[in-house]
């Protein structure tokens, strides 16, 4: 069941658009914000609130890269792998994170502390290399700093 808050937020977002389908991305994000990811069950519940077919939501949920369809860690690490960060060694940052967390790209640590994902250019090219953990962006990182950063997130 959707919580009361989720339902209120979804219905509130619906009023910003011309039809219910248009608020589907926002609805998926609302559910993901409170639960971490979007399960099949959650899609069924959203479809009831928005009164649109489940398949319409499924279609959208499987397309967008920032809607997660399986459980993810409490902290999402997004490392920028676009061209400027590439020149500043983002591939080393990627391997460094993979080794430190003992997972590969797209993976989640066993203790559900971290999920590691690549991300398109974060618009922080004048401060490359850059990574984002949850809502925080970190600039001009050395490999040592990357590992130290992980300690901040439990």
């Amino acid at each position, binding site marked *: 069941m959707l919580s009361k808050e989720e339902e209120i937020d979804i219905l509130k977002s619906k009023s*910003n*658009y*011309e*039809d219910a*389908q*248009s*608020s*589907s*991305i*926002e609805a*998926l*994000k609302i559910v993901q914000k409170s639960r971490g990811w979007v399960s099949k069950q959650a899609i069924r519940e959203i479809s009831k609130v928005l009164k649109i077919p489940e398949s*319409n939501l499924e*279609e*959208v949920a499987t*397309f*967008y*890269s*920032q*809607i997660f369809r399986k459980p993810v860690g409490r902290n999402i690490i*997004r490392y920028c*792998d*676009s*061209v*400027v960060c*590439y*020149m*500043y060694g983002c591939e080393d940052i990627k391997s460094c994170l993979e080794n430190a967390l003992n997972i590969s790209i797209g993976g989640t640590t066993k203790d559900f502390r971290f999920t590691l994902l*690549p*991300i*398109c*250019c*974060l*618009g*922080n*090219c*004048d*401060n*490359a290399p850059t990574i*984002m953990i949850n*809502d925080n*962006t970190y600039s001009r990182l050395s490999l040592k700093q990357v590992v130290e950063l992980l300690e901040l997130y439990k």
Partner: protein
Amino acid sequence: MKRILRTSETHPLTWWLNEKEDVVWIKEYKKNGGYLAFEKALKTMQPVDIISIVQESGLKGRGGAGFPTGIKWSLMPKKSSFDVRYLLCNADEMEPGTYKDKFLMEKIPHQLIEGILISSLALNVSKSYIFLRCEYVQAERILKKAIFEATQYGYIGSNVLKSGLNFEIFLHSGAGRYICGEETALINSLEGKRANPKYKPPFPAYVGAWGKPTCINNVETLSNIPSIILHGTKWYKNLSKSIDSGTKMMGFSGKVKNPGLWELPFGITAREILEDYAGGMNNGLNLKAWQPGGASTELLTFKHIDLPMNFSTIQNAGSRLGTALAMAIDDTVNIVSLVRNIEEFFSRESCGWCTPCRDGLPWIVSILKSLEVHQGHENDMDILEELCCKLGPGKTFCAHAPGAVSPLKSAIKYFRSEFESGIKKTSIINISSI
């Protein structure tokens, strides 16, 4: 490095900022003449007047394609029977190497809001949407507050400044995918569908969001509108050193001493930006190549560094001005690996709608990967060149694939030997012995 003195005469976009570049909230914005342009337009101008001023100013779209904004606006239907229309602000900045819209939204949010309001007035729009990428959390927070402030001051809402007109601005945050920046894909995404581009015609100006006439403009384009209305077209044209009017957010990233972005007049040379503003290359490094405006623009070499930065000269040199946020590639970078990184990006971000893009880009990536480790096949160069042609302009649904092959095509043109050195030696011998 140059010390920059910003004035409203020379830096219409960024003169509001102090040394520390704090966010300009509504009090300060209004104190310095903010929203005067909107009030002027609302009280003294007809929509057609605003459109003709923008047309006369020569303002070109700042999102990358450089289409004249006034002409785009004039394509919207004139008949008042089209009572519902939309203005969409494209803030889905995801082009690798680009960080200008983020800066404008995070520092001077009210300039964008004022630009949206004046444009809404010109286009008879009462509802507009800012389509923001979801990773720009800071910009989202700031825009939300700025929209709230503007509503409190009576610039957004019903019967704005007793004009009888209503203006609403909604902030829509996406859920990833680079293709959302393509205008028809952006409409699909706003409508809660997969961000596949749509066939044109019909153009969004007639059949856009929810089937209604829709105009889509970039953040930087809209931010230019208030000063054009306030100071006029002659002044705006004179800001530039070239045939393109006005100023542009330009920058240099890569291994340069002071990477950043600055508001500069069109026509400034790439060398001036690189040396005077970005401080030149890092010690011990030389410029090997550069991209003038984002990952989808063709590579240029050090021979082109004295070119003036404007739409036509960069195009004549075989590239595109794009977003004008240039990127320096130094001589330690392997071009094949760099292009592989760019193609991996485009391959991952292809929406998968049309075959050349969906299947061609992963093919390019796999060839580049084998060339990178000197395991390339003799035919690889021919295949790459053929793919550059088959993914070129007019062969796919949208500009994603043509943009993707632009850096590859130019890299082969200037650095062919680096690609050829990746061909496995034995394979040449085997084939030639047959």
